[in-house]
């Protein structure tokens, strides 16, 4: 059996994205390789979600090229995304996971056991038979994370995965994220929480108004921001 081709490095070559007259992302050049999590930072409307959608291949750039391991046609087989507002299928919690497993090619005989393991890993075992849409916002977000992990992705894209979680659940999910990163999955994650960025980030991608201002190691980004915009953002000031 041939090993599936790698998705890494993920390369943005002069990528722009626009909708009508609006420029959402403006000439982004970016290379993301294997390693510690890449955190995507920026104020509201900066283009973080759009960038993650491009990383997933759900959107096509208006100009420029996105490539995964040198390929531009790559299907989403080895990528997974946790949306900012995840959508629960109208099924039970366990069935949502089983559905993800089925479409990630998990053999039928293994699904029940894998479902249990995944639910356990996000702390939702007790809710397995509940209708997924009845879960609280935070529970839904954890379920969506488990459903994304079910794909055993090489690249895992996370769009503010802890935005609606309480502090304990946030810690819990951060641990899952770190464990996933250690097991060799590349994490690319949007976040607003600077504390979280410090805890998780290997490198930081900083966007404002659809433009890439910085791509640096996390320590460099926080200690020596290269742009006044990044410095203002770190201080918690309005970024203009």
């Amino acid at each position, binding site marked *: 059996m041939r090993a599936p081709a790698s998705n890494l490095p993920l390369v943005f070559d002069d990528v722009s994205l626009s909708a009508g007259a609006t420029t959402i992302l403006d000439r982004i050049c970016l290379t993301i390789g294997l390693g510690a999590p890449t955190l995507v930072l920026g104020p509201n409307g900066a283009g973080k979600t759009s960038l993650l959608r491009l990383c997933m291949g759900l959107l096509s750039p208006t100009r420029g090229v996105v490539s995964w391991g040198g390929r531009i046609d790559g299907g989403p087989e080895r990528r997974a995304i946790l949306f900012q507002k995840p959508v629960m299928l109208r099924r039970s919690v366990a069935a949502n996971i089983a559905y993800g497993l089925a*479409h990630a090619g998990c053999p039928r005989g293994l699904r029940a056991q894998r479902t249990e393991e995944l639910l356990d890993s996000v702390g939702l075992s007790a809710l397995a038979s509940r209708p997924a849409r009845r879960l609280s916002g935070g529970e839904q977000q954890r379920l969506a994370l488990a459903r994304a992990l079910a794909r055993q992705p090489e690249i895992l894209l996370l769009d503010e995965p802890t935005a609606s979680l309480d502090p304990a659940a946030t810690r819990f999910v951060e641990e899952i994220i770190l464990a996933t990163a250690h097991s060799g999955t590349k994490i690319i994650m949007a976040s607003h929480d600077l504390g979280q960025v410090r805890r998780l980030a290997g490198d930081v991608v900083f966007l404002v108004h659809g433009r890439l201002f910085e791509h640096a190691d996390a320590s460099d980004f926080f200690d020596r921001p290269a742009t006044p915009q990044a410095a203002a953002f770190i201080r918690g000031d309005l970024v203009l």
Partner: protein
Amino acid sequence: MSETLTAWQLIASGDATLFAIVGLSLAVSLTAVVVAGIVGLPLGAILALTRFPGRAAMVVVLNGFMGLPPVVVGLSVYLLLSRSGPLGELGLLFTPTAMVTAQALLVLPIIAALTRHTVEDLWLEYREELSAMGVGWASRVATLLWDSRFSLVTVLLAGFGRAAAEVGTVMIVGGNIDGFTRTMTTTIALETSRGNLALAIGLGIILILLILLVNATAWGVRVWAVERAG
């Protein structure tokens, strides 16, 4: 007033003629809905998921056909099946099969159009998530139909209500033959004009009870579904 009393007596005594008519009506309309569902559910789902030139026109036509006049459908099927028509060889005119065909055609646009609407709403919600999970085309159709199954039950019931209550198509293609193609609605029309009001009223009562039952079921399914699946 005495006719109404006689009507209730007919129902209560389990009058054979009356219940034979009810039985045939139910068989014809249920079969028609099953046939229309087999075609209409996937058709509506496919229409919801695909984008092609002329799609908007097709949706508009389909929506318009929900209000197709039964007599016109009846006439069209009559022309198809009549001795000199293209399918005249089959000898189906004035048989229950002809009635099923006509009612299925009448109900098909209702089922397809309502399915399209229901599935498209869910598709807008699911689209990105399913794309991200790499769900193939046929699986998408199956997933959307399955996840909207409770709404689709009410769609089928709406189709059944329409079929059971209409008189135009079955009158024209069935011919209202005693003991063979006589349905509740055609019998009511005939017996009323003959002045035999008791049977007409009896059938009218049953028809209304049926329609109420169908709507109560639809409502129950919806409540139950919301409770279960959110």
